[in-house]
């Protein structure tokens, strides 16, 4: 069995020799921060040394991001202080922090969509040259790319880039400004294993040159793979701070959630049913008008999960959109239960029993300013009993929302509460519940657990597995290879807009999948 769901290969590949200097670069003492209803940081101490990669490990809501927002000047602590290179500092804004060499790459990107990568990197920067032709910016950007080993197309506009590429722009932007302390807020949540390893190398390289890198994560293997030291937070407090070399995955997990964690995914053995989704020779363009899907063939049967593995930007997002009627199709056919749905509207896909958990839960999945009930009925508001002629029955809406919330264990204080008040995990539970309710035949789930903590991830996964066990077809698109391996009955690898390999769950070859994700198959064919 070559399957490696523990991610050991990842650990071994970039495990560094540990030799952090003992020069303190950042010292945070007795940090307290309270938000309405939440004590986010309680008496937190943190030291960062020059030349170390420091992992900050904790579940969602543990206070990692809040602490780093304090360090990077976005928040002010209620009490406590920060010293940088021995000097006490009080940042009133991120600009003051960056001036002191503290740079943060946010989990949710802060980029201007319509500007190019080069323009974003130079945005609001006093040191930018006075003459800023696209050519000059591009050249300077290329220089930074080479210096830090992060490649982006300087002239591409942000909206045209994949999330992985956008992240590289964010990191370059911070580094270009001379950050000595680089904070990465859950940087791998949008990356594939290959991209993540590359990021680890970049982080190690920066540390080797004397910078401090803070790596916020809730993934244990990443802590082991990249960090010299690790600080574990739970419920706003420091649980432990120690050398990574003395930690194991098991010991970290115990600190992280306070107990040993056992996965309770239950996969029912069942004979494959009849085909639900049949896609043949599918072609579609991406947002830049370039071919993104170049002849996709796939089929999924009842009670089967087909997992799509692949590096970001190889056509996965476009595939999901095409299968839900959201993206125009150039060529090819999409059939659900034998009915041709090519060129049909999103409504017709929904009416055929196709649900969709989209990649971007805030931009596409949920209206955060509207209530839980309003979000729950998004797929149902045109159907009885919620729809009564032109009217919308408020009582039926609440009844339906209550059902979704109970089925998916969404924690809400009221169904009329705006969705933005919910935590990320609860938002995803609500979205998952709503879409599985629609998906009486096929559910397309894109990065369904991205950014969620272990508990929420497990719940969403078991919800999806239950849906499969009930005889529905699932198309799971995820950049988390472990997730694809754990969940899928069959695995397809996507590269360059094509399916380049398919595996049964039983005979998975992790190395081979990794190679295919990197485009190795094409080289073999060419040679």
């Amino acid at each position: 069995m070559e399957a490696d769901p523990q991610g050991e290969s990842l650990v071994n590949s970039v495990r560094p020799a540990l030799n952090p200097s003992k020069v303190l670069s950042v010292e945070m003492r007795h940090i307290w921060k309270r938000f309405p209803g939440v004590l986010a940081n309680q008496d937190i101490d943190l030291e960062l040394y020059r030349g170390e990669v420091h992992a900050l490990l904790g579940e969602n809501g543990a206070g990692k991001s809040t602490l780093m927002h304090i360090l990077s000047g976005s928040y002010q602590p209620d009490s406590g202080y920060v010293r940088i290179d021995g000097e006490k500092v009080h940042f009133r804004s991120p600009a003051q922090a960056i001036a002191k060499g503290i740079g943060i790459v946010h989990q949710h990107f802060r980029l201007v969509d319509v500007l190019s990568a080069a323009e974003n990197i130079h945005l609001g920067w006093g040191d930018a040259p006075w003459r800023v032709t696209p050519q000059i910016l591009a050249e300077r950007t290329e220089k930074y790319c080479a210096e830090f080993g992060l490649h982006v197309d300087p002239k591409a506009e942000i909206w045209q880039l994949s999330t992985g590429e956008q992240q590289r722009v964010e990191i370059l932007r911070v580094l270009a400004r001379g950050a000595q302390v680089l904070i990465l807020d859950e940087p791998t949540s949008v990356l594939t294993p290959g991209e993540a390893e590359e990021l680890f190398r970049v982080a190690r390289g920066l540390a080797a040159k004397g910078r401090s890198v803070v790596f916020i994560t809730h993934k244990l293997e990443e802590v082991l793979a990249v960090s010299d030291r690790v600080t574990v937070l739970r419920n706003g407090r420091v649980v432990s701070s120690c050398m990574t070399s003395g930690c194991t995955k098991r010991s970290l997990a115990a600190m992280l959630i306070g107990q040993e964690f056992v996965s309770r995914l239950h996969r029912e053995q069942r004979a494959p049913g009849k085909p639900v989704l049949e896609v043949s020779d599918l072609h579609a363009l991406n947002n830049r008008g370039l071919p993104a899907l170049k002849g996709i063939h796939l089929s999924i049967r009842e009670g089967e999960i087909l997992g799509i593995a692949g590096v970001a930007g190889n056509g996965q997002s476009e595939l999901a959109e095409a299968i839900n009627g959201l993206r125009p199709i150039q060529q090819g056919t999409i059939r659900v239960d034998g009915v041709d749905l090519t060129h049909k509207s999103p409504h017709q896909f929904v009416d055929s029993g196709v649900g969709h958990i989209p990649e971007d839960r805030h931009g596409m999945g949920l209206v955060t300013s509207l209530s839980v009930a309003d979000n729950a009925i998004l797929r149902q508001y045109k159907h009885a009993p919620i729809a009564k002629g032109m009217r919308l029955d408020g009582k039926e809406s609440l009844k339906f929302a209550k059902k979704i919330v109970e089925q998916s264990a969404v924690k809400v204080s009221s169904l009329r509460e705006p969705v933005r008040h919910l935590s990320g995990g609860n938002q995803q539970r609500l979205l998952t519940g709503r879409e599985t309710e629609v998906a009486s035949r096929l559910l397309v789930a894109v990065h369904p657990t991205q950014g969620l903590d272990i508990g929420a991830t497990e719940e969403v996964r078991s919800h999806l597995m239950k849906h499969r066990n009930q005889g529905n077809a699932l198309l799971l698109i995820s950049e988390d290879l472990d997730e694809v391996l754990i969940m899928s009955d069959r695995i397809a690898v996507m590269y360059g807009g094509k399916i380049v390999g398919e595996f049964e769950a039983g005979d998975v070859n992790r190395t081979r999948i990794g190679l295919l994700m990197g485009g190795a198959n094409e080289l073999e064919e060419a040679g």
Partner: protein
Amino acid sequence: MTIAQERVHRTLRIRRRSDAPFWLNVLVRVFAIALALLLVGIVLNFSGMEPIALGRKAIVQTLGGAYGLQQAAILATPLIMTGLAVNVGMRMRLWNIGADGQLYLGAFAATGVALFVKGPPALMLVVMFFAGAIGGALWILVPAVLRAFWNVNEIITTLLLNFVAVLLINHFAIGAWRDTGAAILSATPKLPYLLPSIGKSYMTYGIFIPIIMAILIQMVLHNTQWGYEVRVIGGSRGVAEFAGIPVLRHILIVLLFSGALAGLAGMIEVSATALRLSGTLSNNYGYMGIIVAALANGSPLGVVLAGFLLAALLNAGIVLQTSGLSVSAMLAINGVILIFAAIGEVATQYKISLEKIQESADDAVQIDAHHEIENETEPAVEIETEVQSRPEELQP
């Protein structure tokens, strides 16, 4: 490494709050307006006026009697209608700055019907009602189509059409439609069909139209599928497209409806208050509708209250003018009150507290009144606003 001397001192802290209770919302607004009046009073006092006597006079004459209240209701009618027109657009994050022009065109259409068609008065008023709505809607048709299909900014197109509208009205009021029988140089004849008065009062039945419209809008938005779709689009266009809601069609319909509401304001104004169409029919009602909608902060019923408040304020200004205050002083007073009301509106979203802080001795008292950047996953409490771009986000 030197360690600065530590001591405890107090810091004024301003923070975003997620929900403010209703009583606080009311209290903050009352307090804001009281502060504004105090400020105005001090300035008047130093200018040798008697602020308290003036204030009493203004309040008694505007809100203290039947006449004052009726005048406020009459003036509030067009303000609420244009306020609703702006409010409806805001639901989809569209800005109709052209309510003034649509008001003129609504009045123009209603006047045209009244002057050149004959029929039983009740029927004629109904026809004029719809003519007014259609006139307003047609005036926003081009900006609406440009916005829906080519994404042309509606703020600019609707605004520019205001100037065209006034010129068009003047062209007819001074030209072909001018009342040649009277010594009036720039208005049409008195309309032969007018909205009937309520009993012996100064008010006509026109004052009920804004209230009915506000209730109607509230119900449509919250109790129909169409209203639901509009709210989804207003919340997130991406989600609306995801759900297959026809966004372009809704932009078109909502803008046309917005124009129709402003057009109705014109129809009521010309057939109940001004009685003749002229190029001075609108006293900037369209622009004041923007203020009304902004003060109301989203709810149609709030628009009714804000419209009435503004009307009372404007009438108080007229009273003060008769007491020797200059027009500019009166406008300045109105402005101060409105600014304080707007500040009060924002202030309800923040919590101010005095806290003990342990910091080094050299630190002065600090006020950090910044918008805290929202982190989507932690903490679980909301500190995000509807405002989409915040300066900090562009400055890493």
